[in-house]
């Protein structure tokens, strides 16, 4: 069977497609800059003329009183006042007829973000304009204005950054779309035809392939299907033969991507939104800020233990589709919320339904995964979710900046419905069961399957990796980064871009990490390395702080988290499968998810208290320390269990 049919075809195309998108954006951006500069020139000209006229009037008045140009007092201060009124002027110089400088004023402040523009705009010569000063029809001096060539491009900075975000979002969307199209046109038809052929070559004529499922190979599909139809007609049965049951991971990619984008649309501003919404007296601003985050985690923690039961009862497709309208309603609820309590309630409700939908998709991913490719299956699944989170956060920041936070939630609800429509079409109703990997085990464990939770390696994994990483994500990324940046005066769109870096790292590094985990490197080095990188990055905030340091730390934390994310699930599955009791995998995964959420909740609650007492930077550094401790735990337990394993092997004489 072809593995992941969409993947093969799409990878080659997607780079080129993304390239065309990026190039077209850059070219248009460059052209736009020039169009803007030309278009705004007349107005800038008028302003320069006005400056000339105004200054000239003042100076002529003084000259009328007989004061010579060189000794007019206070002109410097007056010129500085002119600079205040006209932002595009960098320098005004008053020259006497001989060319000597009588007075000058230069702008001191640097416009932040001007450095970004140097890459996009040409550095033109600073334009200067000369305005003669007349007194009673005699030329007495000259006013020279130097204007800022980056005036227009600096003002466009917000547009450029917003377009950057839209561009990145579109590249990811394009990626998913291309995977979908190529899977539908190439991968799935090939796979279906071959599967049916193999079935029929083995004598099984129970299935058909409907023509639309076969793409350009429908002639072949029709003939193969007709064999089955003919045989069933001859046997006297005139049933509608079932289509070949085929489920692929690619089926859930696009709907899950859109769904994740929609639900994460508030990533950049949720704590700020709920903090500003206020609430009853006892709700301090900090508590109000974390209320929806805590509600989210509580809801997911509540669902986690039941996930294995739910997944066994309801098939993924139905579960996903049921969640859609409910999610949309809850998002509208959050958008309408005018108190932090209401917002927390609706956000928690959304989290509940979100958990159901993502559990459905994760189950789908695991069941359609090929043998020995667990980390890659979960990795692909996380890639889609994180890609969506990335797009949603960045997009949400831009939208909230322009149309307001409440409206952004409504757009999110609309996207959720779109995800549902796509999902209804693409997700298959029936999938096969997961193939269990049988591994050789050293000792026969006894007891109920839940005992897996007491396995030493499992506990080390939880304490060393899952707990610190999740606390880091919930406290640092969801809560402290927006709040700390906002306290520094950064606007929502920029906060969105910083948080976006975290998800971007996961999107970029995820597939490679998953391959390394399944392949040569293995789970443990990645886990230990990842938690160490995250720990060092967060701890470094003791030494430096500010916009760019936080952005860099967010990126590094993203890298570290990626190295741990899918890998920890894969490692949990491996630990569980080394235990022969049935059902351990489900219990291990549910346990992992539950403890993660509980840890995140505890971390958030603790952080509110800590932030009030020791400040943002120290709290973040504390989390970093926790991570480094986790790394040490992992290393120690690994050494101990390897030693135990060796002594067991020696004892049993293998």
């Amino acid at each position, binding site marked *: 069977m*072809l*593995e992941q049919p969409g993947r*093969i*075809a799409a990878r080659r*195309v997607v780079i080129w*497609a993304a390239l*065309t*998108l990026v*190039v*077209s*954006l850059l*070219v*248009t*951006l460059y*052209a*736009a800059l020039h*169009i*803007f500069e030309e*278009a*705004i020139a*007349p*107005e800038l000209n*008028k*302003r320069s003329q*006005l400056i000339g006229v105004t200054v000239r*009037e003042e100076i002529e008045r003084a000259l009328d009183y007989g004061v010579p140009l060189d000794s007019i007092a206070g002109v410097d201060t007056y010129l500085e006042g002119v600079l205040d*009124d006209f*932002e595009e002027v960098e320098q005004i110089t008053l020259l006497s007829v001989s060319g000597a400088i009588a007075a000058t004023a230069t702008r001191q402040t640097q416009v932040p973000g001007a450095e970004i523009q140097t890459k996009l705009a040409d550095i033109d010569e600073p334009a200067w304009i000369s305005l003669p000063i007349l007194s009673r029809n005699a030329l007495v001096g000259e006013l020279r204005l130097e204007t800022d060539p980056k005036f227009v491009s600096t*003002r*466009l900075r*917000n547009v450029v950054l*917003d*377009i950057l975000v*839209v561009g990145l979002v*579109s590249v990811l969307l*394009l990626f998913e*779309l*291309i995977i979908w*199209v*190529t899977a539908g*046109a*190439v991968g799935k038809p*090939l796979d279906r*035809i*071959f599967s049916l*052929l*193999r079935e*029929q*070559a083995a*004598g099984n*004529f129970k299935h058909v392939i409907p023509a639309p499922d076969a*793409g*350009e*190979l429908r*002639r*072949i599909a029709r003939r*193969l299907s007709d*064999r089955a139809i*003919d*045989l069933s007609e001859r046997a006297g049965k005139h049933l509608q033969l079932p289509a070949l049951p085929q489920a692929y991971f690619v089926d859930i990619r696009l709907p899950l991507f859109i769904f994740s984008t929609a639900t994460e649309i508030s990533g950049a501003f949720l704590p700020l939104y709920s903090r500003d919404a206020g609430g009853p007296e006892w709700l301090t601003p900090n508590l109000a800020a974390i209320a929806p985050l805590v509600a989210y985690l509580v809801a997911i923690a509540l669902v986690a233990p039941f996930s294995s039961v739910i997944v066994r009862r309801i098939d993924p497709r139905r579960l996903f589709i049921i969640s859609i309208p409910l999610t949309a309603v809850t998002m509208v609820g959050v958008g309408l919320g005018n108190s932090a309590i209401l917002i927390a309630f609706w956000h928690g409700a959304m989290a509940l339904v979100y958990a159901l939908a993502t559990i459905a998709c994760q189950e789908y991913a695991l069941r359609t995964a090929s043998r020995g490719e667990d980390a890659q299956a979960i990795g692909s699944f996380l890639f889609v979710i994180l890609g969506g989170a990335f797009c949603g956060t960045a997009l949400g920041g831009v939208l909230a900046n322009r149309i307001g936070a409440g409206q952004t939630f409504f757009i999110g609800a609309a996207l959720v419905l779109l995800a549902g429509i796509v999902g209804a079409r693409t997700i298959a109703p029936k999938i096969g069961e997961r193939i269990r990997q049988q591994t050789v085990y050293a000792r026969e464990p006894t007891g109920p399957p839940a005992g897996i939770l007491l396995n030493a390696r499992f506990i080390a994994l939880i304490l060393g990796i899952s707990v610190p990483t999740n606390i880091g994500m919930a406290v640092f990324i969801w809560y402290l980064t927006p709040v700390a940046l906002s306290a520094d005066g950064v606007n929502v769109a920029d906060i969105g871009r910083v948080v976006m870096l975290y998800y971007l790292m996961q999107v970029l590094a995820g597939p490679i990490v998953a391959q390394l985990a399944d392949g040569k490197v293995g789970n443990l080095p990645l886990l230990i390395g990842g938690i160490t990188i995250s720990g060092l990055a967060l701890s470094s905030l003791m030494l430096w702080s500010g916009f760019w340091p936080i952005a860099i730390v967010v990126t590094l934390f993203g890298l570290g988290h990626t190295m741990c994310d899918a890998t920890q699930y894969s490692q949990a599955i491996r630990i569980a499968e080394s235990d022969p009791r049935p059902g351990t995998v489900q219990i291990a995964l549910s346990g992992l998810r539950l403890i993660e959420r509980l840890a995140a909740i505890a971390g958030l609650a603790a952080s509110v208290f800590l932030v009030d007492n020791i400040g943002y930077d120290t709290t973040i550094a504390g989390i970093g320390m926790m991570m480094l401790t986790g790394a040490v735990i992992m290393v120690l337990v690994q050494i101990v269990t390897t030693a135990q394993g060796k002594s067991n092997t020696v004892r049993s004489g293998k």
Partner: protein
Amino acid sequence: MAIVWRILVAIGAINFIVLFIFVSIATLQFDTILSGLIQERLVVIADRVRVPFAAVANLGLPLSTVRNARAILEDARQDDSNIEHIHVYGQDGAIVHSTSRTPSATLSQTWPAELHSKGIKEGLRIETENAFIVGADITSPTQELSGGIVIVYSKSQARTQVLATAASLGLTAGLVLAGMLFFGWGVLRIALSEHVRVFGGILAAYDRFERQFWRSSMVDHEGDTPISGLGVSSSTFDSLLKQSETRYIDRRDKPF
């Protein structure tokens, strides 16, 4: 070849949406920048115009006593052809001087009150559908409001500029899109050549198989080389096809 078109449509659609959003945001931003610049300029003009009237107010005299007020106002108005009118109004809110012959038709009663409430530094800044309205108040040394200056500036030229910019941006985006589609088509044909080849190979193998039927000949005409790629091969396809056909015929001819 259909796959090339389908992907091209996907790329084109996303490209189009992105460029459309870009042109929209850029145009809105340009509008905001231009409006801001114009209003700043008008504030400076208003500040200039109020100087002689402020001098009069400092003496405690009512503004209506400025004799060549009309000339002062006209002088300022002629600096920029877009200025529709400049009005000076007195303490009670009635217009005392104006460049317009029918001032009552253009002045809104709420402006004086707004002007006073905003304070000296802030001034009045209103944007209506067709005009920018910028004002500065004139106060006596005792901080009493003596009156104010209001400049009414037509938006038509600004609007034209914004539309022109939007058109330029749109045209540029359209050209870029067309160029990229053309380039993308070429690149996709190369990138997808293996897919096209594999599909072609499979369909060719199928055609050979069918040919055997309508020629009623069971001789293998395997003149073509087997094609493989994307994890499948046409020879596997061929053998599976023949195997399954044999099984089908067996089942079909089985006596009941």
